[in-house]
């Protein structure tokens, strides 16, 4: 399956990946509306780690043997039968945070919605390339067939 590959040597910490991830997961899918009206309900699922000159954008690593999947007692965390991507079915998530406790990348976050759910990268399944990859100006994120 295709995975997002992180190239920290090309990352300039511009955070456009975060911006476009948030927009891609907003209801409006509109950059202005998403930022003006939806900031309280939607978060970026990619996190830019930054310290001095070092930065890189981090999202779910799509582990082959995902800890989040085995730890999830609700069945929300699952592997998409068609794409193979590990995603969270937010309608089944109860917000127990077991996934947060086991993800070695720290790539699962608490959502901001009233309904407590775990929020993680879904590889933008219904689009083409993930939004973070598509909007990275430096190819510090690429979407590649790995393994």
């Amino acid at each position, binding site marked *: 399956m295709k995975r997002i590959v992180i190239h920290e040597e090309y990352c300039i910490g511009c955070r456009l990946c975060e911006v476009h991830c948030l927009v891609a997961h907003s209801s409006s899918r509109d950059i202005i509306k998403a930022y003006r009206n939806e900031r309280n309900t939607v978060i970026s699922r990619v996190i830019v780690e930054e310290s001095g000159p070092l930065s890189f954008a981090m999202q779910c690593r799509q582990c082959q043997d995902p800890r989040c999947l085995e730890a999830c007692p*609700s069945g929300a965390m699952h592997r998409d039968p068609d794409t193979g991507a590990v995603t969270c079915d937010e309608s089944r998530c109860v917000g127990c945070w077991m996934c947060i406790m086991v993800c070695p990348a720290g790539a699962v976050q608490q959502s901001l919605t009233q309904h407590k759910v775990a929020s993680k990268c879904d590889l933008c399944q219904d689009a083409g390339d993930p939004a973070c990859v598509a909007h990275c100006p430096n190819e510090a994120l690429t979407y590649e067939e790995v393994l």
Partner: protein
Amino acid sequence: MSITIVGNSAAAVGAIEAIRAYDADVPIHVITAEGPAIYSRPLISHYVAGDIDRQRLAYRGSSFYEDHGVDTVFHEPVTAIDPEGHTVTTNAGRVVSYDKLLLAVGGSPIVPPMPGLDLEGVTTFASLEDAQAIESLLKQGRARHAVVVGGGMIGIKATDALTKRGIRVTMVELAPRILIRALDDESAAMMTRLFGRAGVRVLTENTVAEIIPDNGHIAGVVLQDGQRLDCDLLVFGIGVRPNVTLARDAGLEVNRGLVVDRGMRTSDPDIYAAGDVAEAYDLVVDLNRTVAIWPNAYRQGAIAGAQMLGQPREDHGGIPMNAIEVAGVPCVAIGSGNAEGASYDVLTRGTAADGSRGQPQYRRLVLEGNRLVGVILVGNISRAGIYTGLIRHRVDISAHRDSLLSDRLSLLSVPEDYRKHVVRGESIEV
């Protein structure tokens, strides 16, 4: 070749999904004392709290067994194993043969023997049946004051759930503080204060000595210290004991749990065990022990499933961990987070919220030499799994103590080699 699995929870599902990932055809039989629904025991507190409905207790869909080509026997507990003859027998006298057998029979709630356990309003907090009994009392408005016995994970979850439903709860814990096996003094005091704010009475160094009946229903309890509490619901949330009788009767090596090796194999080469019944390797203490948590159960089941097919997948060890929430404040305990003593180095940060207001924040890291062996977080649990990874991979963190204690925990808080390993996402196993 055929595989028989006794049980139908996390370990059984983990095994079935692993088996089918390798082999679409090998016959699998599931025999369980319970019904066809594969429900999630950890979610019953969410159900009792009213956060989710009955349907959402389903861990896997109703067609799971059919989809995975599994033959099933429901509502029949297995009563005997014949390791020589490779058969199991159910209470209905049904005999099922196996080439490989997985015991995923879980544990049973611990209930101290005393008269009155069969009264209406007296229950454990472990099964769908328990949850439905409580739910039915709550719905009829027949439970207003509950006593919860046990201030461990189960007792906490029961107490928090009942409190959310507007029930006045008194929690009774035998130890000097709640969550004694997971939390240290400071964090336990924070959770106790949160309960206090939510109107829960927490009594320590005390337990229920006697149940007072009233026409087939519970009317109250007498505590060990002699005080009487009126209540119409008594919930035992003390803990679970591994269901080892079946295995012991079959002559398998049993300690507290059913002893297994790194391939989840018991002392009989054709019998495996996984989940709450298994006494498997725990990498934090470097010993086998029973740790009844969902992630271990699923993984152990998956390992057993692979091993029964001759696949070389091994257990690298579990880590005890749990996440709870009291009055909306999350708390996470990983590994030996509450360890004290000269062989540990303890780093803490944070403050108890003063008196009645504010959210407490607390972070406690326990190091043994250069390695992280345990963590407690209260309030901000963001990215807690980074710690779990460091514990699991036994990473030398001696140069990163300060950044790891930061409230802004990130992958920049860990050693570069390990960070690159995680970022590449090549492998999660060591």
